[in-house]
């Protein structure tokens, strides 16, 4: 077990299974097909992301360095939240980027969805966490990985 302290972007607590993307997470490419065709498990549709492609994202603790891709990214994340198709939480090793921040904040302010977001967890966090591990977020941005 290891603990990491980050910065809270969207407050909240949660406990979920980790799903880890080592490279940048392309929000549009990842969610597009699942949202368009109503995939209940919200499987990742990004062919360029070998870590996540075809893996269910719904309810997972999404661990990533940053998001990349189209400026529709925030809108896509907001739509996922509004439809109840969002990950359990998003945990960034780096400072959050403007597109991910937009989506997470829009989801928090304008929908009923709960998706805590913590950033700046550091490279060591992403080196340590593996897909399938259990992740717990405390109110203060303390993330426990076991």
């Amino acid at each position: 077990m290891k603990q990491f302290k980050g910065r809270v972007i969207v407050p909240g607590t949660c406990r979920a299974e980790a799903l880890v993307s080592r490279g940048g997470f392309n929000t549009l490419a990842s969610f597009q097909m699942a949202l368009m065709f109503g995939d209940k498990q919200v499987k990742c549709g990004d062919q360029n992301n070998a870590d996540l492609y075809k893996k269910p994202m719904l309810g997972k603790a999404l661990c990533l360095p940053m998001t990349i891709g189209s400026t529709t990214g925030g809108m896509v994340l907001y739509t996922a939240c509004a439809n109840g198709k969002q990950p359990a939480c998003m945990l960034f090793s780096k400072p959050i980027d403007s597109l991910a921040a937009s989506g997470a904040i829009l989801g928090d302010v304008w929908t009923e969805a709960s998706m805590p977001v913590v950033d700046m967890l550091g490279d060591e966090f992403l080196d340590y966490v593996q897909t399938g591990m259990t992740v717990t977020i405390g109110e203060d941005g303390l993330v426990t990985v076991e």
Partner: protein
Amino acid sequence: MKLTPEQQAMLDGAQGETLAKVVKTLVMYGDAFGAERMVPITGKCGHTVISFGLKAIQPVYDLYDQLIDAGLVSGQKFTADPRPIDPAVPSSLLEDIVFKKIMYTHQKKYEAQLKKLGITKDEDYTCTCYLDQVGNKPQEGEVLSWAESSAVVYANSVLGARCNRNSGIIELMGSVAGFVPEFGLLTDEGRRASWVVEVRCAQKPEAQLLGSAIGMKVMEEVPYVKGLDKWLGTELNDEACAYLKDFGAATASNGAVGLYHIEGLTPEAKKQGEALIREDAQVYVIDDEELQRVKESYPVVWKDPDAAPVLCFVGCPHLSLCQMEDWCSAVEEKLRANSMSRVSVPTVFTASPAVIREAEKGTLAARLRSFGIVISYICPLMYMNNPLCKKKPVITCSNKLRTYTSARFYTEGEILDIITSKEGKP
């Protein structure tokens, strides 16, 4: 963040719950990036990246209805990204059914929403809103609330305006509130370069390839590019602007660049020179070998890599008028040399409705059509983003289109050779 009394009152609900939520969104957005205050939007017009009535994003239209019902429309008129469908573009019956009956069923309703929210004109759907024919061209130093990566990077770099890489929806919230949080590319410090790129190519590098290489290297940071003056000169004429439009779109889509400086050419580089470069800036040297390496690194995601292309898109971002003229002359010359009268691959040139209107005034549009080329205002990205088109072998000289879809990248010269060859393949 320190708000003015008026902004604080808006946040506290003095002008209604919906506006309070808009301001709360902007405050949280600014807090995430350490913004200390809001600054007024000083640009005349906004630009939104959401131009499509896609059934799957119904929550976005519901949110916009909330804004409209609360009487909250954009404080400034705005332009929008290109429309996702155009009957002029070749498509099968099945594709038509998918586009019209499954995907873009909300197009009319959404365009009606945009009218209420403040779109400038019915025809102002283009990613190149800053071209003279469209007229949404910000002035140097103006603060914007735009989204669309290629337009934001152009406005920041070529026009010297100030805008962050905003997401769709957030850009409209800024326009509704009339202010945006001050951070990143809105600040002098955020506009300094943390990379120096030295271009040492033997010939003028392809804009979309050079932009791709730089984007992939610097990601979201600001590059200061040296060595382009011998090809681009020191004046922002039509040719240089067209080059920078395509270059910037590639830096923004292959990486996440929101601003670049070109030595001796772009406004801030002209005024401040190397003072724009941070003391700890890294250096990236690009020569012909490096560009070739980058090009060869692109994955080919076609099922059959040797398939003959069935469609070619030129114009992502949308073509400028001078680019359409250059392409027209080049295609004409090449067809004549090959004793052909029409292109061998169905080819679509995309441009804004305003640029197409200009092309229709003279002989340009008619000449292009006589070569079998379709002229369209469509967004090629939107056209490609569905399971049917994804399977088609489509070629393009756009690195943005390559990045987001299954389209295969070739240089402009290669595309010209392919579409004017008798075989219709490389």
